[in-house]
């Protein structure tokens, strides 16, 4: 778990490896399996997730501590967070389309996918549940997203090889991908207990 008493590098290590968001916490699986065909695509997706997740967490933190808590309407948490994330993704998409077409070409098609990426909402809720301060929330979010990027790139590398391997017909496609992810998750489980995290 993460809390305000931890030093920043402990938060980073915990989020990146020990509690890897995809392989240990089971968030963001749709995009993890969906776009991990090739390493370059995975890298772009990872960058898009880092970018949106950081913005979304910052926005969620501000909404929670400056609107929902003072107004006593905590029960609108889920609804307001998901609406803010959806709006944010739209705004970001329009903004980079105008100002940075090159970036848009690289990230553009992945942005809409991120709205339904449960990791973005999940992390926004977790930073509230863990009662993290603003700076710690940002550090945590960026490390979680970096953990996502790390695992999706590693996974894409393995998948590129699986495509050439002789696999029984019945396991081709998603079954073998899941089993591979299981073995990768087993490897990440090796980080458990690292530095007592």
């Amino acid at each position, binding site marked *: 778990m993460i809390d305000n008493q931890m030093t920043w590098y402990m938060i980073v290590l915990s989020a990146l490896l020990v509690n890897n968001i995809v392989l240990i916490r*089971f*968030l963001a*699986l*749709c995009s993890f399996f969906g776009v991990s065909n090739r390493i370059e695509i995975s890298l772009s997706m990872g960058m898009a997730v880092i970018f949106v997740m950081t913005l979304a967490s910052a926005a969620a933190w501000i909404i929670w501590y400056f609107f929902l808590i003072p107004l006593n309407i905590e029960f609108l948490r*889920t*609804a307001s967070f998901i609406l803010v994330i959806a709006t944010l993704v739209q705004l970001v998409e329009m903004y980079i389309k105008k100002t940075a077409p090159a970036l848009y070409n690289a990230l553009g098609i992945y942005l809409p996918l991120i709205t339904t990426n449960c990791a973005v909402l999940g992390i926004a809720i977790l930073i509230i549940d863990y009662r993290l301060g603003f700076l710690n929330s940002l550090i945590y979010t960026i490390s979680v997203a970096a953990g996502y990027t790390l695992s999706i790139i590693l996974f894409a590398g393995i998948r590129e090889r699986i495509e050439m391997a002789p696999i029984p017909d*019945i396991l081709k496609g998603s*079954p*073998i991908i899941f089993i591979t992810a299981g*073995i990768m998750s087993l490897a990440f489980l090796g980080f458990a207990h690292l530095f007592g995290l």
Partner: protein
Amino acid sequence: MDKLKIFTNGLLRENPVLVLIIGLCPVLATGSSMNDGFGMGVATTFVLVSSNLFISVLRNYIPDSLRLPIFIVIISTFVTIVDYVMHAYMVELYASLGIFIPLIVVNCIILGRAEAFAYKNSVKSSLIDGIGMGAGFTLAITALGAIRELIGNGTLTFFNRELLNLSSSLSFQPALVFIMPPGAFIVIGFMIAGVRWILKRS
């Protein structure tokens, strides 16, 4: 399409988890015991049926360009209701499902059915579609939970009652890895392969 076919579609032929392979995060995360898996399945089914029902009732009044934000508001309303009702009346289940209850809102199955089915079909069909898809989801997550619990813990619990305990009767040594994260990926991989094999034979 006749009603029975809509219902059985979600159960096997278009099972959201095992055939369409969507909405996996809660399945893998909470399907670590039969009890939790079933609870998560029922919670998701409730949201799915209610949102399908509401959206198909209101479908003629929802402007096309506003449909996604309105779907999201409707779905998140039901998710929050489930969240609070479970917290008040099913405290133990609430504690073990944790963050995955609010995350029902981003379950692709629910938004997917709203967009692909409820927005275009009659109230009755949408209702049956919601129940069928929900049942398919619940079936998959409960089966995954049961398999993992049996191999990884040697027990089967349902409605908080222990149905089976291999460890005490057969001195069975549970393979812990199956209730840990890797087990979820490996079991679901073989389950998808198994369903494929069944569909291919029939």
